[in-house]
């Protein structure tokens, strides 16, 4: 069966420090991968999506970047965090042929 893992689950970082959130999917190949940010009252904002290795599309200009070094690995990064980067980040995958998203448990980032 397919599973999706995100880590770390919780992260507290100072302003200006780098960031790396990882997401991996098991049990499927060539998934479409997505990074969302969940904010109270604002729903889920799509940040990045990837349809294949090395292919990244950005939805919102921001201080973050994404990479997909392997078929089932999706990484969210920042070189210098801002206070406004604090939030709950969700990774999701979509298998080809279906439009249902399966979500990870999320990573809560607090920037101080």
């Amino acid at each position, binding site marked *: 069966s397919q599973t999706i893992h995100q880590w770390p689950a919780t992260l507290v970082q100072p302003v200006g420090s780098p960031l790396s959130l990882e997401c991996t999917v098991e049990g499927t190949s060539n998934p*479409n991968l*997505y990074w*969302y940010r*969940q904010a109270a*009252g*604002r*729903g*889920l904002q*799509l940040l990045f*999506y*990837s*349809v294949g290795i090395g292919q990244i*599309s950005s*939805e919102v200009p921001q201080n973050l970047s994404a990479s997909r070094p392997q078929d089932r690995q999706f990484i969210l990064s920042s070189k210098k965090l801002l206070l406004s980067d604090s939030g709950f980040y*969700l990774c*999701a995958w*979509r298998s080809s042929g279906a*439009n*249902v*998203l*399966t*979500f*990870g*448990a*999320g990573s809560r980032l607090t920037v101080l």
Partner: protein
Amino acid sequence: AQRVTQPEKLLSVFKGAPVELKCNYSYSGSPELFWYVQYSRQRLQLLLRHISRESIKGFTADLNKGETSFHLKKPFAQEEDSAMYYCALVSHTGGFKTIFGAGTRLFVKA
């Protein structure tokens, strides 16, 4: 523009009462719509999708293209239905992006 609107941030009902969570969408073409749910301390997960025309946990949702709505309904709310509900639309261009509404928190009181 593609957009999903959930006008209610919070909906509070008594156990056994009917519940309707509103969702309106904006999309050029034939929409593919979903409801996702997030229970306390659980992952966000699919509740139902309009293509399946199914009832899940007593919830149903009918796509009304004339009113561009996809409201979620349940005739008799249960306490375990308390959760955050998101209406979502899949855009069939560029990566099949899923666009979410702001969400409605449903609170079912005993």
